[in-house]
């Protein structure tokens, strides 16, 4: 355990700490963010009404749309000179979700990422290969700071260049791997082609996340790599990776509750649900300064496990592996994709409302995205090269907008299935649940 005092804090004490922090958070949000103040006034709640963690249900929810409406810095609660980092994730309409961090925010995030690595047994003696993307995406830098906080040697590979990843993994004696679970399988496949026997390497644990995966994938990863494959949860709105992580018991992800307070609600009514019931995961970032996030609706479906204390000694409650989404968001190779973004690209290219279908599949270990677009009279040309140019243009625009390589297939009109007059937009053939 990286920080036993926090991670194994007696539950009573933890709830008291959460209550105090929630009050301070509500006060920060109310005093410094007009958006939050207006929301709290609408609900008729003031910071002084928040006296214990149980008062959380009196506070309003925050949604991804709110982030978009406050683009870029409307959610910030501190003057700009206190911001030391800005990250952003893809938004539903092309405008990203912007998150700022104060020095304390970066510190707390690094602490939680370090706890996540330590969940798999990592210590200062380890070498952590970080194959999440570095950049606006929080995956790479989040785990990087976590590894450094732990005192381990961070190997900032970022994503891609799999042969080199494998060469350095072998030559540097990497012991901890951080990447998407599908990329872990990709590494295993390429290593086999290169004739590198990964099972002989000193790998011991992996923190895999940023996309949905299954127990079957875990089993496969653990057959191909000599490590314990652990699920990690996070999202940029909350901080980044390190909101919750599985321990070696591999039975749900411990939430680092002194920083992130989890709730499960009924997505239709917003009513809180008891532990053990499935619903939408909602997080409150108790210690965040730059963006004091209150009751953020993640749109992830899961439950808080109610099967008693964990053998590892951590007292943070555990959430189950993600069970789905409340919206139509797809996660493709760790990238968030909304069908509306695809539609935006198509409309912008031709100025018409084309019929399209997104087909997501997994070939080998990697997610694939195909977009079928119906060729209407206005898109049609009787020259092959012009149709090919149209196809390539869609491909490039999708790549530029979503950072996903999609196969574009031009299809005949009326071939995309319509249900009740409305075209079906997504076909997810991946077997994840």
């Amino acid at each position, binding site marked *: 355990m990286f920080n036993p005092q926090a991670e194994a804090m007696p539950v009573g004490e933890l709830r008291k700490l959460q209550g105090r922090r929630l009050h301070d958070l509500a006060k920060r949000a109310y005093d410094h963010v007009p958006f939050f103040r207006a929301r709290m006034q609408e609900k008729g709640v003031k910071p002084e009404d928040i006296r214990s963690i149980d008062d959380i249900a009196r506070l309003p929810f925050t949604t991804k749309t709110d982030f978009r409406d406050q683009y870029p810095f409307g959610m910030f609660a501190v003057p700009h000179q206190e911001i030391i980092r800005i990250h952003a994730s893809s938004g539903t309409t092309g405008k990203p979700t912007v998150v700022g961090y104060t020095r304390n925010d970066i510190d707390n995030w690094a602490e939680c990422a370090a706890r996540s690595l330590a969940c798999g047994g990592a210590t200062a003696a380890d070498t952590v290969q970080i194959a999440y993307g570095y950049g606006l995406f929080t995956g790479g830098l989040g785990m990087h700071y976590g590894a450094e906080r732990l005192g381990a040697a961070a190997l900032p590979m970022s994503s891609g260049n799999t042969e080199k990843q494998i060469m350095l993994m072998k030559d540097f004696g990497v012991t901890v791997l951080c990447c998407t679970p599908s990329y872990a399988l990709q590494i295993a496949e390429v290593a086999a082609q290169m004739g590198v026997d990964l099972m002989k390497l000193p790998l011991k644990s992996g923190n895999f996340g940023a996309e949905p995966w299954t127990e079957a994938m875990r089993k496969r990863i653990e057959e191909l790599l000599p490590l314990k494959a652990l699920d990690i949860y996070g999202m940029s709105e909350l901080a980044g990776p390190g909101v919750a992580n599985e321990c070696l018991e591999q039975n749900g992800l411990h939430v680092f509750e002194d920083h992130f307070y989890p709730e499960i609600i009924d997505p239709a009514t917003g009513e809180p649900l008891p532990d053990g019931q499935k619903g939408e995961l909602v997080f409150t970032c108790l210690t965040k300064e730059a963006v004091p996030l209150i009751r953020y609706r993640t749109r992830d479906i899961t439950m808080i496990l109610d099967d008693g204390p964990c053998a590892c000694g951590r007292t943070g409650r555990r959430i189950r592996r993600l069970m789905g989404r409340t919206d139509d968001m797809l996660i493709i190779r760790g990238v968030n994709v909304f069908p509306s973004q695809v539609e935006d690209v198509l409309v912008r290219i031709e100025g018409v409302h084309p019929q399209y279908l997104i087909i997501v599949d997994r070939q080998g270990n990697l997610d694939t995205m195909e977009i079928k677009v119906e*060729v*209407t*009279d206005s*898109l*049609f*040309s*009787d*020259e*092959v090269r012009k*149709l*090919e140019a149209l*196809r390539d243009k869609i491909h490039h625009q999708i790549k530029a907008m979503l950072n996903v390589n999609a196969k574009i*297939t*031009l*299809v*005949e*009109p*009326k*071939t995309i299935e319509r249900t009740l007059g409305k075209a079906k937009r997504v076909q997810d053939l991946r077997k994840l649940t």
Partner: protein
Amino acid sequence: MKVRQISIFLENRSGRLASVLKEVGRAGVNIRALSLADTSDFGILRLIVDNVDKCMKVLKDSGHTVSVTEVLAVEVPDHPGGLAGILDALSEAGLNVEYMYAFVCRATEKAVVVFRFEDVNAAIAALKKSGISILPAEVVYSL
């Protein structure tokens, strides 16, 4: 002079071509010439028919993506090097052939080849200047 050619978008799936041709046949439209351009994903069927308007209506009504393109039907001397001579003339005039295909039947002692140019009027002028015969549209539809 300009011949109206019908182009139809086809997915590269079995039965698609047959389905289009069945519609055309059912409407009593007769095909004079055809070509099929294909890629791994899709194809473009190009038809010269005896009744362009009727054919267009039938295909549109059955939900196909269609367009009309102007092409030229050029008489080609039926001997070795005949087509090459014409292409030479075109190339000298700086004209680019977008695509071309041969007619199914023969009109006269000469073969007939359909050409699609980016600039059809420039092509007409160049062909005439080189003394190459272009078949009138009415003749082509009733070949």
